[in-house]
């Protein structure tokens, strides 16, 4: 029978879902929010069950009705489960205004979209009814009921489109008041009509193309029409492969004539920018010199130069693999999910996290994910200009991707230990969504070393986990194109965390039992990539798509091969282990499709039942893509205006510093790039697995009414209960330096990432010290723009120089090269390019987690030091961005400089911090790096949680703006007990580490800023002249930026 179930929170309880939606409306449309006087949200299920009414009613009341919390509306199935009439009007009667004007918006999934809640409901029904319900269908949705006298259709449509639904995944309908009150929506016929149906008419036919005869124009059209994202040169390479007489002869023997759509799609996926990194492998002519591939020269070349004994596998596998200790290895990977997040932020964040966790599960012999990281680059949430077509408001993007990462990480039980948020209007066209993950695995599993991937001819090809649907077709090729108002919605997927979690648990169990030989994930390109790549290890593969378990019928063979439906891994299972593998899978509730076998034929062959639909030479498939040749040049930018100190104007600078000191500090603290991310961090479970040592935030005694937290520089976990070895994870990202010089930007990113992990206690400096970097480039398309290519070359050079200087190898990375938008804004063509952005993730070992550090000052009386380099510059600083956007600050302008690195100094300082030089490090009570906002912001961040104050003095004779708010390299703020100062200062002197006493921690709740040895005497103290003061409550309230975030 059919049933429709609406579950509401009882009227006497807070409806937190409705409250959350109202908050979202308020943030985007404050005007509209004020028109809604009351709102409630109901969960809806539509059901079609092969079960009688008598059986269904008790089962539903058991499963769907919590008597303490809920009212359930079912038409007439469970009349007692609601108010006095059993209808929705009972709920509406408790609205505070009468007679009210009510409206409803009903949302439901489009057909074929992953719908986990309805899957769970069917599973619950099966448990309660004690039988399998293979024919059951269910769909979930929701109903937002609102009351407000001046709401109209236009307002409701805006709520539906911009807050409640994502129209790529869902549809919505407005329900008028009498529709809510009447029970027509519960009629059997109506429910039958409302249940989404998947079209199962699709044909199984394989299309072929008369490739040999196609003209250049026809080849280009074909590439565009089928979303292959292949250039003419690549299409011609494919043409000549199929026209090769030897290939033709071989194919005719096999019964294949013209190339099939399956073959074309497999080639397109394998050759996509996303999978093949054609730009990073291109030959580059850069200002008179020829670079033999950026990847080979600057990434692989760097790690080869550095040569570390603890590197087990780099650039070969899903992630880099390093030694953790004698028993275990760790692996790390960072990915981007920019294109899908632009279309569907929640799905993008969720699949991003789940996908990178699968990378870890498929790394080496398979690792257990032990941490996640996430970095988002988006336009500011208070963006007010009009939006180009198909562009989602940045607030909605941020809220969606955050929620996606929350679901993906929290529900998988993986702690999110580190991340960053970067705001810049140029991310409006495409947000950058970096998802990272690390894993731990035994160095030997079932007798095999973890880092070696082997496949033997005869091994079965098993697809494990989720089923294949039409979702996520052309994800890899789509992300290899610029985002436009024409982008396809078929590229969007939603993740299913439960399916993945069950699969992950099962695979780790199977690994320890030695039930498979090799494993990889199904990510971009689906089976075409995973099987295609594993086939290289044995020398061939034969796959039958008719054996693939699918979500529904009617999926074409090529779609089966390239679909990126989530939660799937591909595993090579030795025939002798197959039955053990399958039976364990069944006991764990995990589905496996046995699709064929790996062989040594040199071909990737695909059958659809008895019919051969593809046969591609592996050599051609993986090496046949023509190498790109790109031109590159870099022109330094014209002068960028900036705050500065012209020497002769010393007094005027001092005056402006006194006048604007306090508001500038508070405004900087409230910059979205600097302000507290606590609202986001606390929604991630950063302590899952019980391994947390240093959390993203440090918190003072949780006894006061309002607990305050301040930022830490990186996360530390203790992955093994039997060992005090830790892993530190930090990141560096400095896109605002790109417009000054991408070389500097890359160097600053490396330095920031390394500094962050050093702050929390990473080891560094000895040959056996484990500190590795990952590089993730996000660029806008440089293929036809030699300046953008030049910027990329500069960034690669900067990355290499910094990594070599610090002797920190690159172990894994990824590039996303199409971060542009082309479309229309109010009918006008616009093009938006993301700024060149390089994320550096640093992962390091902590020798003893009991020696890890946090950033907060601990006690009054402690001495504050500025350690390291103090050559700050305001060019490219947060101060500079703020001034350019804040006309109220009439500061002096002129020529400014950017901070510059000094790597020899850095090595000395970092080796001391990292424990390989000196022995007094344990006396440091806190350590925090000087980054966005400069020295004073760093000091303020160390004070916020505990509420202690500080006196800070700035040296005279230098531009106070530059010293106070300039940014640069290799600088830290640390605190030390007075008794420990002599020993530390002696050691720093001995090792040649620069340091300056810049302040004292005080009992009062103020930050007092003094200038040494300057002018007037009215406020003179031992510290110098007091120039301005900011109280801790002021700093806290600026920094927390309440009301701005979701």
């Amino acid at each position, binding site marked *: 029978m059919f049933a429709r179930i609406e579950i509401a929170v009882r009227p006497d309880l807070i409806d937190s879902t409705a409250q959350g939606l109202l908050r979202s409306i308020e943030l985007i449309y404050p005007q509209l929010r004020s028109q809604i006087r009351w709102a409630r949200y109901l969960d809806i299920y539509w059901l079609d069950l092969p079960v009688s009414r008598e059986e269904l009613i008790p089962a539903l009341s058991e499963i*769907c009705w919590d*008597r303490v919390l809920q009212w359930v509306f079912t038409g007439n199935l469970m009349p007692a489960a609601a108010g006095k009439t059993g209808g929705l009007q009972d709920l509406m009667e408790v609205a505070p205004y009468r007679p009210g004007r009510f409206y409803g918006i009903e949302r439901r999934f489009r057909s074929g979209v992953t719908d986990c809640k309805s899957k769970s409901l069917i599973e*619950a029904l099966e448990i309660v009814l004690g039988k399998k319900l293979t024919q059951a269908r269910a769909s979930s949705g929701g109903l937002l009921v609102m009351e407000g006298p001046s709401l109209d259709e236009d307002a409701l449509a805006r709520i539906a489109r911009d807050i409640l639904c994502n129209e790529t995944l869902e549809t919505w309908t407005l329900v008028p008041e009498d529709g809510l009150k009447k029970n027509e929506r519960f009629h059997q016929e109506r429910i039958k009509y409302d249940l989404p149906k998947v079209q199962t008419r699709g044909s199984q036919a394989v299309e072929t193309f008369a490739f040999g005869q196609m003209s250049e124009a026809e080849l280009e059209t074909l590439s565009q029409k089928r979303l292959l994202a292949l250039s003419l040169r690549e299409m011609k390479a494919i043409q000549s492969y199929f026209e090769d007489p030897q290939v033709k002869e071989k194919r005719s023997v096999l019964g294949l004539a013209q190339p099939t759509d399956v073959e074309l799609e497999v080639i397109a996926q394998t050759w996509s920018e996303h999978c093949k990194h054609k730009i990073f492998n291109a030959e580059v002519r850069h200002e008179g010199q020829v670079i033999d591939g950026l990847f080979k020269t600057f990434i692989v070349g760097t790690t080869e130069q550095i040569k570390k004994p603890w590197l087990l596998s780099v650039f070969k596998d899903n992630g880099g693999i390093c030694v953790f200790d004698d028993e275990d290895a760790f692996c790390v990977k960072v990915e981007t999910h920019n294109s899908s997040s632009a279309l569907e932020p929640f799905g993008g964040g969720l699949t991003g996290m789940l996908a990178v966790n699968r990378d870890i599960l498929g790394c080496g012999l398979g690792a257990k994910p032990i941490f996640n990281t996430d970095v988002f680059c988006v336009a500011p949430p208070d963006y007010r200009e009009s939006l180009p077509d198909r562009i989602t408001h940045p607030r909605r993007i941020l809220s969606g991707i955050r929620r996606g990462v929350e679901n993906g990480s929290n*529900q998988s039980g993986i702690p999110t230990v580190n991340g960053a948020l970067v705001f810049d209007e140029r991310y409006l066209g495409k947000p950058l969504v970096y998802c990272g993950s690390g894993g731990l695995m035994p160095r030997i599993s079932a007798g095999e070393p973890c880092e070696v991937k082997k496949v033997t001819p005869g091994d079965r090809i098993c697809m494990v986990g989720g089923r294949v649907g039409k979702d996520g077709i052309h994800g890899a090729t789509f992300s290899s194109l610029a985002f436009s108002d024409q982008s396809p919605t078929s590229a969007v997927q939603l993740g299913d965390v439960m399916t993945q979690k069950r699969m992950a648990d099962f695979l780790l169990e199977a690994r320890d039992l030695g039930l498979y030989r090799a494993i990889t994930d199904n990510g971009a390109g689906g089976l075409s990539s995973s099987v295609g790549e594993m086939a290289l290890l044995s020398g061939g593969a034969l796959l039958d798509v008719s054996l693939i378990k699918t979500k529904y019928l009617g999926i074409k063979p090529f779609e089966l091969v390239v679909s990126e439906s989530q939660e799937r891994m591909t595993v090579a299972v030795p025939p002798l282990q197959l039955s053990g593998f399958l039976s364990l899978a069944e006991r764990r509730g995990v589905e496996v499709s046995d699709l064929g076998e790996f062989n040594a034929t040199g071909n990737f062959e695909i059958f659809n039942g008895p019919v051969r639909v593809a046969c591609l030479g592996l050599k051609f498939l993986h090496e046949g893509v023509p190498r790109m040749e790109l031109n590159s040049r870099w022109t330094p930018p014209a002068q960028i205006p900036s705050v500065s100190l012209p020497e002769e104007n010393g007094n005027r600078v001092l005056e402006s510093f006194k006048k604007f000191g306090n508001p500038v500090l508070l405004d900087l603290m409230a910059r979205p790039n600097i302000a507290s991310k606590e609202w986001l*961090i*606390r929604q991630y*479970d950063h*302590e899952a697995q019980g391994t947390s040592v240093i959390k993203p935030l440090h918190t003072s005694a949780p006894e006061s009414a309002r607990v305050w937290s301040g930022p830490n520089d990186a996360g530390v976990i203790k992955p093994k209960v039997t060992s005090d070895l830790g892993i530190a994870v930090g990141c560096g990202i400095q896109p605002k330096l790109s417009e000054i010089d991408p070389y500097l930007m890359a160097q600053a990113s490396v330095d920031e990432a390394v500094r962050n992990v050093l702050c929390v206690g990473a080891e560094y400096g000895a040959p056996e010290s484990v500190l590795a970097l990952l590089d993730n480039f996000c660029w806008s398309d440089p293929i036809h723009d030699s300046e953008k290519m030049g910027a990329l070359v500069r960034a690669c050079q900067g990355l290499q120089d910094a990594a070599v200087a610090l002797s920190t190898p690159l172990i894994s990375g990824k590039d996303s090269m199409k971060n542009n938008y082309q479309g229309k804004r109010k009918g006008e063509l616009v093009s938006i390019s993301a700024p060149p952005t390089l994320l550096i993730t640093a992962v390091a070992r902590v020798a003893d987690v*009991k020696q890890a550090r946090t950033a907060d000052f601990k006690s009054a009386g402690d001495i504050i030091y500025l350690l390291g380099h103090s050559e700050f510059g305001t060019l490219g600083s947060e101060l500079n961005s703020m001034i350019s956007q804040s006309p109220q600050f009439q500061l002096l302008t002129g020529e400014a400089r950017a901070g510059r690195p000094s790597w020899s100094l850095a090595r000395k300082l970092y080796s001391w911090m990292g424990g390989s030089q000196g022995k007094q490090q344990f006396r440091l009570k806190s350590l925090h790096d000087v980054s966005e906002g400069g020295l004073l912001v760093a000091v303020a961040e160390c004070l916020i949680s505990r509420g202690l104050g500080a006196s800070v003095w700035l040296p005279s004779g230098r531009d106070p703006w530059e010293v106070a708010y300039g940014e640069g390299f290799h600088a830290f703020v640390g605190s030390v007990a007075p008794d420990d100062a002599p020993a530390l200062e002696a050691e720093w002197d001995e090792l040649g580490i620069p340091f300056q006493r810049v302040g004292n921690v005080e009992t009062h709740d103020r930050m007092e800023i003094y200038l040494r040895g300057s002018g007037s005497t009215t406020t003179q103290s031992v510290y110098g002249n007091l120039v301005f003061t900011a109280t801790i409550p002021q700093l806290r309230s600026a920094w927390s930026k309440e009301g701005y975030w979701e």
Partner: protein
Amino acid sequence: MKPQNPRVIVITGDGILGEQETAQAFRLAKFDVEIRHLNDLIQEKLGMDELCRRYSAIAFPGGFSFGDDLGAGKILALKLVYQLGWDLPTYASRGGLVIGIANGFQALIRMGIFGKDISITNNSIGKFMALWTKVTPVGNRCVWLRGIGTIDLPIRHAEGRIVIGASRRAETLAKMERLGMTCLKYEGNPVGSDENLAGLCDATGRILGLMPHPEGYVRGTAHPEWTAHRGRAGAPGMGLTLFENAFREAM
């Protein structure tokens, strides 16, 4: 012969996440630990007699079983009742100990262990929260909490607001207080629970359910402020006491 340590069964599968940490906490308290997958137990038909004979304690760890769909812990509770047929009050009356942590607690509530007028739902702010709180045991009914004062423990959940049914609120609360069931309360109330409740026990005091994670604080370096008290970095965390109490009770 070496005297046998008490044995605990830690349940896993279907999106339970905390089995390793929970097992570790029991190991530190000298229990022998078995982590068992729900489906294996169902297949083996591990019944009540066998359960009582083999295990001194059962632990339902934290997690997101079945993705929290249909209410956190709901489908897990159905699976335990319908497919495994475990009767936890009987197990407790025969001397067994039970702990349900976070998602495990939610499942115990959905199974009706604490009565049918008790439920649990979204935190009042409607968000997932990961933070440390202070909690204080109330009364001395609960054997897991004996001798424990106010302690710091982490909470990490979206659905932790304990609700007492409005229709019979006063009598329900009076009865629970009389039986010593309202055994753990928040100082402050970050999730908006009725009566500041953070945990409940049954009338025997042997079944404890709580939203904070005692297994998340078995080591000094887990506390958010440990770097301010370096001397304590090597000490065990205060959450371990619950498991040590269980050990004493089981011996």
